[in-house]
C-alpha cells in the first residue's frame, strides 16, 4: 500500500485530505520595499502566518534617497504556492514590487560566508591549499586558525564547507543569497 493510500484510509476527518504531493520548486524572489520599521516583520510574518517555507532571506537598504530596501528571498513550494507567495507579498502596503528571478530568466546568485577553521600541521596547510582552489580569502589568522571569506553560489559555499569539516571547521556565518538579473535590463522591466 502506498503512503498516500494509507493516509486516505486512516483519515476520517470531515475536512478530508490535504493536497496531494506535487513537485516542489525553489524560486528566488526580489522584493523591493519601503524601508520603514516593521517591514521585515510583515514579510516574515506572511511566510509564518500562511505556512510558506523560506530557505534564505537577505535584506539591506539599496537606495537611500528613495528609502528603498531590497529583500532577496529564496523560497520553496509547489508552483501554486509560489504564485500565492508572490500575490500575497504584493498585497503588503510597503511592498513596491515583487519579481521572480527564477521566472524572469538568467540571473546571478551569490552568497558570502565567513568560515573559521582551527588546526595545526598538515591539516592547516591542506585547508589553506583548498581555500586557494576555491578562491577563498584568509581574512584572519592565528597560529592555529584561519577565517576564510568565500563568495559564490550556494552550492560552491556548501562544497567548501563540506571540505573544511574534516580539516577543523569550527564556525560558519553566511549571508544568504543576493541575486540580480543578467544583462542590461533590470527586474523593473517586465
Amino acid at each position, binding site marked *: 500500500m502506498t503512503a498516500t493510500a494509507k493516509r486516505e484510509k486512516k483519515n*476520517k*476527518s*470531515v*475536512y*478530508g485530505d490535504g493536497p496531494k504531493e506535487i513537485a516542489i520548486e525553489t524560486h528566488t524572489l526580489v522584493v523591493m520595499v*519601503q524601508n520603514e*520599521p*516593521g517591514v521585515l*516583520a*510583515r514579510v516574515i*510574518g506572511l511566510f509564518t*502566518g500562511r505556512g510558506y517555507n523560506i530557505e534564505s532571506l537577505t535584506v539591506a537598504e539599496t537606495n537611500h534617497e528613495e528609502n528603498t530596501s531590497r529583500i532577496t528571498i529564496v523560497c520553496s513550494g509547489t508552483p*501554486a504556492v509560489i*504564485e*500565492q507567495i508572490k*500575490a*500575497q507579498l*504584493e*498585497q*503588503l*502596503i510597503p511592498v*513596491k514590487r515583487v519579481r521572480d528571478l527564477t521566472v524572469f530568466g538568467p540571473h546571478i546568485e551569490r552568497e558570502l560566508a565567513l568560515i573559521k577553521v582551527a588546526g595545526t600541521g598538515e591539516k592547516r596547510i591542506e585547508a589553506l591549499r583548498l581555500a586557494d582552489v576555491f578562491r577563498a580569502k584568509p581574512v584572519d589568522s592565528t597560529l592555529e586558525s584561519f577565517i576564510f571569506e568565500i563568495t559564490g553560489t550556494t552550492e560552491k559555499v556548501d562544497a567548501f564547507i563540506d571540505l573544511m569539516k574534516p580539516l577543523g571547521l569550527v564556525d560558519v556565518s553566511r549571508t544568504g543569497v543576493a541575486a540580480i538579473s543578467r544583462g542590461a535590463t533590470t527586474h523593473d522591466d517586465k
Partner: protein
Amino acid sequence: MSTKEAKNKATKTAAKTPSKMTGAEIVIKALIDQGVEVIFGYPGGAVLPIYDEIFKNSDKIKHVLVRQEGGALHAAEGYARSTGKVGCALVTSGPGATNAVTGLTDALLDSIPLICITGQVPTFLIGTDAFQEADTTGITRPCTKHNYLIKNADEVAETMHEAFHVARSGRPGPVIIDIPKDIQFAKGTYAPAKPVAQQSYRPKTEPNMAAIEAAVELMAQAKRPVFYTGGGVINAGPEASKLLRELAELTGFPVTSTLMGLGAFPAKDKKWLGMLGMHGTFEANWAMHDCDVMINIGARFDDRVTGRTDKFSPHSYKIHVDIDSSSINKNIPIDIPIVADAGLALKAMIDVWKARGYSADKPALTKWWDQIEGWRAKNCLAYKKDSKIIKPQYALERLRDKMAADPRDGYITTEVGQHQMWAAQFLPFNEPNRWMTSGGLGTMGYGLPAAIGTQIAHPEALVVDIAGEASILMNIQEMSCAVQYKTPVKIFILNNQWMGMVRQWQELLHGERYSNSYTESLPDFVKLAEAYGGVGLRATCVDELDGVIDEMLATDKVTIVDVLVDQKENCFPMIPSGKAHNEMILSPDAAAFDKSLV
C-alpha cells in the same frame, strides 16, 4: 546657521503654516477632513488627549461610548457595511487594543473598511512593560490590512490620511493607527490629504480588456452559466449592484451569491437562486456543480462555499473577477482571471456584450432553466410546521412578512450560528448594504453592536438583530449603549437554549454526545431588557408570535424579543465539510446522514 537666520526661517515657516497643533488636535482635524461623523470608542489613560479634543469638537464629531472595546469595532463594522463609508473606532492602549483584535480580524476577513485609533504608552516607555502597554502593531500585524505606529507629531496628519486611503481602496480592510501619548501632546504641523495619484499604494481597479472580451465571449457561448457573486459587489458600491442586475437581465443567467453578497441581486427576481454553500439552497449548489461557465464576481471561493475542492464544479470554465490578485487561484484554479473592481468589470462586460451584439444561447438556456426549476421544485427550505411549538423558520417567515408591511427601510444584522443561516435562507434582501453578518470569522456577539452602528447611521430605519440566546450574551453589555443613544434596535432571539449549530454538529457528527452545548441558567431576557431600560417581550407558542412581533415593531425603544423555538430543529439543507456540492443533504435525508464521518 546663525541664530538670526534660524529665527527668520522660523517666522517664515510660521507664516506659511498657520500654527502648530498638538498630535491630538491633528487626529481630530484629520478625522473631520476625512468626513468622519461618528466614532465608536472607549476612553482610557493613553487616549485622554484625543478624548479631550473630542469633548471640544463634539459639535463636529459624534462619539458613541460602547461598553467594551470589542463592541466599538463591531459597531464601526455595522456602520461601515450599512453606509459604504469607513467605520471609525477609538480605544486605549493595552487591553483596549487587545479587546479590539477580534473586531479587526472580523473586518479583515469580511473586507470591511475600518480605522481604529489606539492609544499607546509614551514613546520613551515603549518596550519597558509599562502599565497598559501592549505591542499593538506587533499583535495586529496579521489581523489588519496595515498598521502604523506614529513616533513623530509631524507624521500624524499624513499617516491618518494615508490610513483612510489604505482602508477604503483596493480590497477594503481594517487599519490601526497606534499613537503614543507623548505624540498626542507634542506639537506638529497639519497637512491635508494627498491626492490619490500621489499615494504610494495604488491598487489596480481597471480590468484588463482582453480578459473581459475573452470572458464575455465565453459567456455568450455558455449553455449552463451561473453568476456566483460575493461581498466584492457590495464593496464596489450601489452602482455595482445595479450593473449586476443589468448584466443578469441582459444575459438571462441565473444568479447565486455568498453570505456576504446577499442584497446585491434582488431576492424577488426570478433569476435568483438563493444563497449557495454549506447551508445554501439545493438549486444554487447544484447549478454551481453542473454549470459549464461560472462567473465569479467578487467572491473568494471560501471553503464554506466550495465544499470539497477537488470535486468543486468539475465541468466548468471559471471566470473570476476580484480586486485582490492573491484571491485568484488561491483555492480553485481559474481559467480567466480578472483583477479589477467589481463595478468596473461589470460595466466593461456589459459594454462588450452590447458592442459585439452578443446574445445568450436561448435554447440551451431554456433547457438549463428547466433543470434549475426541477431542483427548485425540491423546495429545499421546507420544514415541518407545528401548530403550537414555534419553528425558528416560521418565526423568521412571520418577521419577514411583518417587516415587508412596515414602511421603514429594513436592516438586518445577525450573530453567528443556526439563526444566522436561517436568516440568510428565509429573509429576502433586495438592496445592498441591508445585511450585516460576520461571514469569514464567524464572530458570535457581532450582531448587537453592529445593529447599534447601523441604527446610528440610519436613525429612521428599522434595524433588527437576529440572534441566538448564546451569541447575544457575548456582547449583551451593549444594551446599555443602545439605551444611552436611544438607538431602537430590535433583538430577535431565536431561543432554543442550545448553541444550535454546535448541537447540530454533535448530533450529526459526534454520536449525539452533546458536550457543553446546552446553556443552563440563562437569564430571563424580558427582565434583562427591562433592567437595561429597554422593552422585553416573549413568545412561547405560535399564537403569541404575531402579537409580539407587532408590539416589537410598534415600540420606539430598544427591544429584546425572546422567541422560544423548537429546541431540536436543525438547519438544512447542508453540505457536510469535505463533501461536494452534489452531495448535499436535505432535511428529510437527515436520517441517512453519514455518521461515520467523525
